[in-house]
């Protein structure tokens, strides 16, 4: 899946947005989930239903995301320095698994150069083709494209921005709502907060 590709935004904003995926992840939750699905698909569906109803999938997502600095999992970074340091540790750890970085090419290649690595394979985004008049405005796309599966709807972003503008919720609360929809946890929360604050500031308050 190409879910960390095609993120919209200008270069300044994208300088705060890097995602590292370790593919073939050995996180036990993923392994057990795949095994269960393969051997007992009906039980898997039942367990998933129960977990969803109990809200535990959200908890597991948070656990995956907040594992300590010494664990090696998929991560989102908002600066090049932390990205570089994480890549250095991954290289030293020599996990033998594929590591993929999404972000600005120039910045990522700089990080690789510092640890004597170079790109093995590159994927360029040639942009959006077709009926682009159907798309929401750019400020909304910058937020919604951070969930590559597009589980954060444009209408939700507009509503949350409006709620912020009217003082009903904080931008942190808005980001938590959006983050819950992005089950893969690749939505960059600090960038999302800045973008939705900017969007909210352009709206007129509703009396």
């Amino acid at each position: 899946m190409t879910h960390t590709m095609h993120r919209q935004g200008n270069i300044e904003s994208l300088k705060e947005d890097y995602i590292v995926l370790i593919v073939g992840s050995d996180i036990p939750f993923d392994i057990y989930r795949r095994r269960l699905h393969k051997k007992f698909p009906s039980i898997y569906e039942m367990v998933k239903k129960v977990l969803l109803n109990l809200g535990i999938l959200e908890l597991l997502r948070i656990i995956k995301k907040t594992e300590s600095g010494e664990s090696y999992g998929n991560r989102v970074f908002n600066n090049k320095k932390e990205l570089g340091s994480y890549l250095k540790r991954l290289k030293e750890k020599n996990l033998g698994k594929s590591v993929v970085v999404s972000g600005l090419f120039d910045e990522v290649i700089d990080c690789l150069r510092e640890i004597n690595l170079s790109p093995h394979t590159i994927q360029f985004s040639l942009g959006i083709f077709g009926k682009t008049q159907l798309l929401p405005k750019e400020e909304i796309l910058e937020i919604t494209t951070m969930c590559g599966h597009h589980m954060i709807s444009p209408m939700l972003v507009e509503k949350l921005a409006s709620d912020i503008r009217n003082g009903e919720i904080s931008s942190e609360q808005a980001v938590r709502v959006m983050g819950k929809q992005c089950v893969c946890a690749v939505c960059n929360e600090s960038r999302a907060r800045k973008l939705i604050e900017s969007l909210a500031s352009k709206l007129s308050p509703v009396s």
Partner: protein
Amino acid sequence: MRIELKKCLGCMECVPYCPAGAIIPMGDKFMVDEDRCFECYACLTSGICPVDALKKVPLKWPRILRHVFSSVAMLHKQTGIDGRGTAEMKTNDVTGRYRHGEVGFTVDVGRPGIGTTFEDVEKISMAVVKVGVEFEQINPVTKLMRDKATGRLRDDIKMERILSCVLEFKTEDTKALSIINALMDVSELVNTVFSVGCICRCRPDGTIPVKTMLDEAGISYRPNGKINIGLGRPLAP
């Protein structure tokens, strides 16, 4: 998805969560427009309904494809991964899927966020196949093709609406520009959007053949994308 009318309070809380805009008013309550619904369960995942009125309904073929291609929590039987395509270039250092002299393409049909029918997916697969491509065998859309030589999909699925799917294929580097031209041409014929990714193996001297090709042809690309940094252990030399 369905909304139990007896329970629905008409509070509208669920409406903005739907990526399809399929939750519509019916009197003072709300219902799901079944034609527009992607069966992605984003409304359910949100947990927003205060009275638990959102309900899954059993999905039969071909409607089940809506859920398979739109829900993130769904594992594809073919790939064993949760997503709409394969690991594509993400594991190229291990699998060698894209080799020197080849260019890979990912065409995310319906993305970002508009959705698509398989009818439009077929228009694109039929357009690129004329140039000469090799579709990724384990990709879920490839599995739905009735004829890989023409790019035709099964007839019984064409009107199903999904949030997005990924056409994955590769070709010789000499044909890459023709593929891009074919995609530009077919973009006039579809009733949706699609996002195009272009993949290549970098050379040992650090040069990136696709970048040179795109620059020389004056084809623009975004400053951000995806890099496999080559830490995987190859399955074969």
